[in-house]
């Protein structure tokens, strides 16, 4: 069996996510916040399913990939908070001037609303700076929504608070 590139790099490309049905369609992305579950392997896990308040994530067997109903997903971020793989994100590409990304965060210090933070890509590159607009917590995972320069919504997957 061919080894998928993400098993060599630890980085999943958008094309791969699309192929696995994990990428919301362009039209949906332009409409408002929506979940992107970067969970390409058949992990024995379904934690995101029961926690989604709108019942938007489906899975037949424990090892299936999560299938998001993009129409009913509200982008609430609950999946970001509970996913043990820290693989769930919410992106909002609907605004003209900025994109918005919601990421899990488990490092100290905890970002506060208004903080300027470093934006990190899947590769760990510092791709810019953004402003924290919302922070909430669930079982020690902080869910951080950050406003990022337009065009970085599908790039940014972590934030870092500089001390």
């Amino acid at each position, binding site marked *: 069996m061919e080894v998928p590139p993400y098993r060599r*790099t630890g*980085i999943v490309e958008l094309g791969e996510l699309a192929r696995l049905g994990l990428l919301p369609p362009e039209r949906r992305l332009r409409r408002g916040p929506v979940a992107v579950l970067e969970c390409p392997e*058949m*992990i024995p896990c379904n934690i995101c399913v029961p926690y989604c308040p709108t019942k938007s994530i489906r899975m037949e*067997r*424990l090892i299936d990939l999560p299938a998001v109903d993009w129409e009913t997903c509200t982008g609430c971020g609950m999946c970001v908070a509970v996913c*043990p*793989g820290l693989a769930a994100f919410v992106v909002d590409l609907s605004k003209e001037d900025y994109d918005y990304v919601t990421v899990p965060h488990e490092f100290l210090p905890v970002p506060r609303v208004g903080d300027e933070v470093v934006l990190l890509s899947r590769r*760990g590159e510092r791709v810019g700076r953004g402003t924290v607009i919302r922070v909430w917590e669930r079982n020690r995972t902080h869910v951080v929504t950050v406003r990022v320069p337009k065009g970085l919504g599908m790039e940014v997957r972590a934030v870092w608070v500089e001390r």
Partner: protein
Amino acid sequence: MTFRRGRRLTFTFEGSPLEAYEGETVAVALYAAGVSVLSWSSGLGRPRGLFCMIGKCSSCFMVVNGVPNVKTCREPVREGLAVERQRGWVPPADAAELGEVETRELETDLLVVGGGPAGLSAALEAAQQGLDVLVVDEHLRLGGQLLKQTHKFFGSVELFGGLRGFQIAGEYLKKLESNGRVRVLTQSAVYGAFRGGLVGVVGRDAHYVVKPRAVVGTPGASERYLDFANNDLPGVVGAGGVQTVMNELGVKPGERALVVGSGNVGLIISYQLLQAGVAVEAVVEILPEVGGWFVHAAKVRRYGIPILLRHTLKAVYGTEKVEEAEVVEVDEGFNPVPGSEKRFKVDLVLLAVGLEPDARLFAQCGAVMRWSPDLGGLVPLRTPGLETSVRNLYVAGDASGIEEATTAIIEGRVAALSAVSKLTEGSRAGRAAEEAERLNRFLWEEYRASPLLARARRGKQSVTVSEEEMEKVRALSPPPVSFG
């Protein structure tokens, strides 16, 4: 993570007073105080630092209150304790000097050896089914490796998915306590099983001879070692050892680290080091692909930690502890590529190169063993109900073959239910057997259907035989001991 520390206390290290917190072990208190050399090897007098931190190696042997060869990773620090380093193996004082130890006899329905995820779930299941249970564990508290797992577990809500490892241990401990049928001996080691189905236990204050009707062995696994120059230098630590220091006791283990091995353990520890404020220079992996699950790899990559595939550790350098590590690329045949060496200034080198099942209890009982590279080493042959060729001796968790904590929890329940079905009668026995079968179906057909568990699944399939086949094995190799 935040830590609630115990009372401050003072003990002496080679005559000078040192401060520590109640609840810490001697090894961790010394580490926190900056003592990296705990002893010297017997032959060459090379310095030894902490390594496994779970009582499975001899790296932390010290003289405590005059008693040599004390595993200080298991020894709680106490007010006024006198700790000294030792050179090599020091013969203990003769028995007369040490005084009498009382022997107590105990009877129990089910003896559980090891209080990690498999042991806890076996104990709870058996107790809920009405058996009297005795759990023996070497550590200060029950929970095993769960105590230091700060990440959230996968699985489903029923399987504790979404909770962090130490929270799962907490759930079990609460339930065990309220059940009331479970006795616990911590800081106690099973040292052998004897004819007549007796099991010897060295306890904290007494020697126990236990007569169980059945035994579930969940002794876990030990960390594998790796061959490279200076691999015994303090600062070269097992991944699990560092988790103890950092996640169980809240002590920052170093400043800059290199992690060897990109399995889930290596990836998770890298992320946890970063959380503790330790810079992780790289994760080194000899294979051409990441060993662990993608989501764990993605977690470390997005914080900028590189994963160097097809690389291995060549050497570490330093006088009394690690100061530098040298990594080299390997070719298809795993031979070092000359000129590809890279050096990293680090004070910690973490070995996460796999685990090896702890086979001692089963081998000593005379259970028929099988060698399985897929499972990490030597494991007992077992029935689908996890009974070994020694009647009423069951195996579960990493000792049954290296897999992961959630499968260990399920196996613990399967083993306990199989024991219940044999030790009880009528409808209770029938229900237990049915429940064991239901869990087994889930484990084999749903959970292990994940391609990420294919290797463990293949391994476990190869060491599982039907009840009938097991009877033939027993006839060919009758075990020297049996329980019941």
